[in-house]
C-alpha cells in the first residue's frame, strides 16, 4: 500500500536517497505535514484569536532596507548607467534542470520567469537587444540571435524545453563571446547565465575563457538554482557581474527581475557615441505599401523610414533596407527615469508623529488614505509613514513603493511649482 509513496520520481536514487529513506512508509498527505507546516504561518494576536502572519509589515521592512542599501551606494551622485544593452541569456538545459525541487520542475520555472523577464527587460530598456543560448549534452547552441522583439524570443524558448546531458559553461561563454564581438562599440555587453547543474563539461581551460571575456568587457552574471559554485563566483567577480543562488520560486523571480533595470556602467566598457537614429511618422490611414518585415502589402497604420521611405510595422526596429535604427520619442522617454531617479523617501517614526509641537497631516498626499492606524482599540495612533526630503509631503508606505518602483515621479514635487529643483532643460 505504501509503494506508490516510496517510489522515487526521477529514477535516479542518489539524489532522493536520504529523503526517501526517511519518508519511507508515509502517504502523500502525511508528507505534506512534515514538509509544508502550514500551522507556522499563523499567529495569535492580543485577544488570543488566530490570524495569518502580517506579511505586509515584513514586506515593507524588507523594501525599506533594500532601498537604504541602494541609496547608500548611490549617495547624491548620479551614476552613469548602461542604457543600450546587448544581453545574452544562457539557459542550462542539462539533466539537472529537470529536477523537481522547484515545482513543477526547474525547467518550467525557468521558462516562465525568462518570459516575464524578457517582457520586463524590453519595457525598461527599449533600445536594447536580447539573444538566447541553450547548453545541453556538453555543447551550446544559439537559440535566437540578438533581436529587439520579445515575441520571437519567447516563442523560440517555449518550443525547445527538453533537458538532457551535461551543461558546458565554457562552450556557452565561447559562443556568446564570438557573437558579442560583432556589436557596435557603444553597446554594453552582458550575459545572464541561469545555471542549475553542479558541474560543467568543458573542452579546454575555463579560466582562459573567463580571461577572454574579461578582456572583451563582457559583464557576466549568474543565477544558480542548485548550490553556490566557486567557478561561477570567480567568473562574476572577474567580469564585474553579480552571482546569486535562488532559494525558491519567488526568490528566483526576484533575483532575475533585479537584472532588468540597467546596471551601473563602467565607463571604459562602452565608448560614448552619437548614434544616428530615425523618428518615423505614422503612415496615413488608407495608404497601401509593402512592409519589409512580412513582405506583403498592407494598408493603413505603419511607419515610414525617413531615410529610405520603406514601411515598417512596429517600433523599435532596424530598417531592413538601410539599417537605420528606428524609434519613437516615447521609447527614449522610457529610459529617462534611469537618468533622473527620485530620491528615496525618509521614514517618519510613529512616535515623532504624536508630538504635539509639529503638525502632521492625517492623510497621505498621494492617495488620501488615512495615516492613522485602523483597528480595534487602536485609537488615533499613527502608523509608519515616509516623507519626501525635497517637498516635505507625507506618503503612506504603499504609495512609497508604487512611486519608487513604477511611477518614478514624486507627486509632491510635481504638484508644487516652486519646489522643483530638477529641470530637464540641460
Amino acid at each position, binding site marked *: 500500500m505504501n509503494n506508490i509513496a516510496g517510489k522515487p520520481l526521477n529514477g535516479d536514487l542518489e539524489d532522493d536517497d536520504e529523503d526517501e529513506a526517511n519518508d519511507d512508509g508515509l502517504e502523500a498527505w502525511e508528507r505534506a505535514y512534515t514538509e509544508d507546516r502550514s500551522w507556522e504561518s499563523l499567529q495569535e494576536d492580543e485577544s488570543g484569536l488566530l490570524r495569518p502572519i502580517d506579511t505586509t509589515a515584513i514586506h515593507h521592512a524588507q523594501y525599506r532596507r*533594500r532601498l537604504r542599501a541602494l541609496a547608500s551606494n548611490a549617495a547624491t551622485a548620479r551614476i552613469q548607467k548602461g542604457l543600450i544593452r546587448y544581453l545574452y541569456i544562457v539557459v542550462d538545459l542539462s539533466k539537472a534542470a529537470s529536477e523537481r525541487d522547484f515545482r513543477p520542475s526547474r525547467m518550467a520555472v525557468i521558462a516562465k520567469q525568462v518570459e516575464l523577464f524578457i517582457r520586463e527587460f524590453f519595457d525598461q530598456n527599449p533600445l536594447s537587444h536580447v539573444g538566447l543560448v541553450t547548453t545541453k549534452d556538453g555543447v551550446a547552441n544559439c537559440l535566437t540571435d540578438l533581436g529587439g522583439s520579445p515575441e520571437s524570443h519567447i516563442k523560440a524558448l517555449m518550443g525547445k524545453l527538453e533537458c538532457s546531458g551535461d551543461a558546458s559553461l565554457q562552450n556557452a561563454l565561447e559562443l556568446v563571446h564570438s557573437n558579442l564581438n560583432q556589436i557596435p562599440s557603444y553597446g554594453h555587453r552582458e550575459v545572464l547565465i541561469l545555471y542549475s547543474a553542479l558541474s560543467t563539461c568543458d573542452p579546454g581551460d575555463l579560466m582562459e575563457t573567463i580571461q577572454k571575456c574579461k578582456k572583451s568587457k563582457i559583464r557576466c552574471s549568474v543565477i544558480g538554482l542548485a548550490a553556490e559554485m566557486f567557478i561561477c563566483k570567480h567568473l562574476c567577480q572577474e567580469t564585474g557581474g553579480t552571482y546569486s543562488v535562488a532559494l525558491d520560486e519567488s526568490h528566483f523571480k526576484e533575483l532575475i*527581475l533585479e537584472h532588468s533595470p540597467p546596471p551601473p*556602467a563602467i565607463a571604459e566598457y562602452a565608448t560614448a*557615441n552619437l548614434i544616428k537614429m530615425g523618428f518615423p511618422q505614422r503612415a496615413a490611414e488608407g495608404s497601401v505599401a509593402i512592409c519589409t518585415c512580412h513582405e506583403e502589402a498592407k494598408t493603413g497604420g505603419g511607419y515610414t523610414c525617413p531615410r529610405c521611405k520603406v514601411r515598417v510595422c512596429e517600433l523599435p526596429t532596424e530598417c531592413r533596407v538601410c539599417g537605420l535604427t528606428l524609434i519613437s520619442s516615447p521609447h527614449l522617454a522610457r529610459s529617462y527615469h534611469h537618468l533622473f531617479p527620485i530620491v528615496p523617501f525618509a521614514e517618519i517614526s510613529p512616535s515623532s508623529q504624536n508630538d504635539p509641537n509639529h503638525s502632521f497631516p492625517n492623510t497621505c*498626499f498621494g492617495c488620501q488614505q488615512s495615516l492613522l492606524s485602523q483597528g480595534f482599540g487602536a485609537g488615533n495612533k499613527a502608523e509608519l509613514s515616509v516623507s519626501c526630503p525635497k517637498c516635505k509631503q507625507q506618503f503612506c508606505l*504603499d504609495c512609497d513603493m508604487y512611486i519608487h518602483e513604477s511611477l518614478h515621479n*514624486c507627486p509632491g514635487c510635481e504638484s508644487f511649482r516652486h519646489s522643483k529643483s530638477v529641470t530637464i532643460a540641460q
Partner: protein
Amino acid sequence: MTTSAPSKNYADDVSLLVVTLDTNPFFWSSFPFHFSEFLSQVLAFLNSILLLGQLNQVVVIATGCNSCSYVYDSASDKNHASTNGTMPAIYSNLLHNLDEFVAKDQQLTTPHHKPGTIPSSLLSGALSMALCYIQRAFRSGPMHPQPRILCLQGSTDGPEQYVAIMNAIFSAQRSVVPVDSCFIGSNNSAFLQQASYITGGIYYRPPQMEGLFQYLSTVFATDLHSREFLRLPKSLGVDFRASCFCHKQTIDMGYVCSVCLSIFCEHHDKCSTCRL
C-alpha cells in the same frame, strides 16, 4: 523590482473616474468661454456619472498654476449636503473646496513668468496624484471598480514637465488605466495626444464649448466595457517625432547620445549634455 499589474477583478460596470480639472487663472482669463459656465457643465456631467450606477465613484483633482489638490471624492464620508438644501451635496462640496483651492493657489503665485506667455498648469502633479489614488483603489479588495482618468485641460503643455508626464503615462499603461483627454485650448496638446494613444484612451477637442456637456456625456461617460460597442472619435495622426535639444525643432532623423540619450540634429564629436 517591479510591481506586476494587479489582478483584474472588476465588479461589473462599476467605474472610478478621476478627473483633473484645469483651473489655471492665466488661461481662463484669456479664454472666451467663462469658467463658471464651464464648471456648471462639468458638474452636471459628474452628477450624471454618479447617477449611471450606484457604485460609481468620482474623484476630482484641481490642476492649478502653482499647486494641485484633491477637491472632491464621492466616496469620502466628509460630504455634507448644503445647509439650505438648494444644491446637491456634490455641488456644494466641490465648489467650496474649489474656492479654497483657487484662493490658496493665487497666494502662491510669484511674478516670475515671462510676460506674454501663459504659464502652464501642473498636469504632471495631478496625473501622479490620480495614479496613486487608483493604486489605492486596486488594493481595496477582491472586487474593485474599473478606473480611468479624464483630463479636462486647456492650458498649453509645459515642456519642463515632459519627463514627469511620460513617466506617469507609462505607469498608467502598465496598470491598464486609460487616460482620456478633453482639450479645450486652441492648439492640440501633444502630451495629451500621446497619453491617450499610449494608454488606449480617447483624445477629443470639442468644437463648440456651449455644447460641452453633450460631448462629455456621449464620448467620455461610458464605462470601458461598453466602449467596444460605440463609434468613438479616432485618434488622428499622433506626432511621435522628437525635438532636438539644440534648436527645439522636430526632426525625423537625428543623433542620440548613447549615454544620456540627448538628441541632436547634427553630428558632434562630444555630447554637450554629458560631455563624454
